[in-house]
């Protein structure tokens, strides 16, 4: 056994919030902003990696200007099974929405942060730069996926290849206990 403690990488279970912005570091040189949602009832899934077991405590998303509309935010395992979600949540124009969820323990692995909306009211997202089809290729290279008819977020989802480039900013508060 080594005399030195093993190196530990940055740990969401200690640090707290993990977001799609963290997971997509370098996707785009432009900042996230309120963008029209990609389509009513379309869900977008963004992969994250969880290196240590942690409890999901809160989920969040941001809203651009313009009233109305609802969103549902959740976490899925890599098989497309929903672990926890906020349920239908009203948008708050020009503001963040942070929702307490039932504390849900997740283990080490790859998961997907997911967001779906019942309309096209703006959601804070990143639209990768470039001329078509480059932005879509960037979104795909980060492993983002999508699914239709997913509002509210279903118990299980069949994720398919992206056809639209935008990536929503979704946050999750993780705690070790």
């Amino acid at each position: 056994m080594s005399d030195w403690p093993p190196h530990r990488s940055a740990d969401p279970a200690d640090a707290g919030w993990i977001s799609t912005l963290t997971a997509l570091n370098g996707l785009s040189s432009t900042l996230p902003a309120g963008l029209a949602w990609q389509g009513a009832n379309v869900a977008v899934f963004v992969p994250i990696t969880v290196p240590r077991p942690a409890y999901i405590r809160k989920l969040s998303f941001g809203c651009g200007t313009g009233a109305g509309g609802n969103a549902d935010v959740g976490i899925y395992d890599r098989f497309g099974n929903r672990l926890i979600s906020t349920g239908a949540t009203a948008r708050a124009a020009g503001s963040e929405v942070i929702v307490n969820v039932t504390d849900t323990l997740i283990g080490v692995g790859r998961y997907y942060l997911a967001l779906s909306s019942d309309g096209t009211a703006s959601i804070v997202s990143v639209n990768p730069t470039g001329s078509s089809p480059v932005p879509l290729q960037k979104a795909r290279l980060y492993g983002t996926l999508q699914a239709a008819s997913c509002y509210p977020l279903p118990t299980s989802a069949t994720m398919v290849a992206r056809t639209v480039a935008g990536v929503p900013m979704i946050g999750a508060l993780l705690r070790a206990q």
Partner: protein
Amino acid sequence: MDFPTQRQPPPAILTPFNATVGNYRNTYSTGAVIGGLSSGAWPVTNKAYYYPFTLHDWAIAYQLLFWVGAAVDGNVDVGIYDSQLNKIVSAGSTAMGTANTVQELNITDTELPPGDYFLAGACSSSSGTTFSSAPADEVVQSSAPVYEQASAFPLPSPATPVPCTDANPPTVAIGIQFVPTF
């Protein structure tokens, strides 16, 4: 040791821009990211480039990826090598795909144990293009060395790369798809 080694799954899509080398997250070209890449010619006909990465958990490689640039010419090959430079799996010589689009190169689903590997890419034509980043060699080679091998198309086994000697070593947008759907 009483406690198991901490696992960490690879990203859904592993590229030289988000790979982990050793225990440390590595970003080739010191800050180059997917969002900032641009289309450029493959530097040398039949030259292969190799990018080391580490897996900290078992993973299945479903497909290999090559981001075609603005101009299409020649054939491409993408592959995975073990730390001894033996080729584990590769796409083989494949006609370069559609411009400005990530080309999906299907392979036999290959399970990879934790360990050190190389991701390699090669092109048969310097008129073919890919998305890449290429800062100065003192920037790249001092942070995450890129390796090269001339006359290496299709990708050979074993490989015999050497540290890249280009003044601007390219980091190209090739990748491994560790999820079933891209």
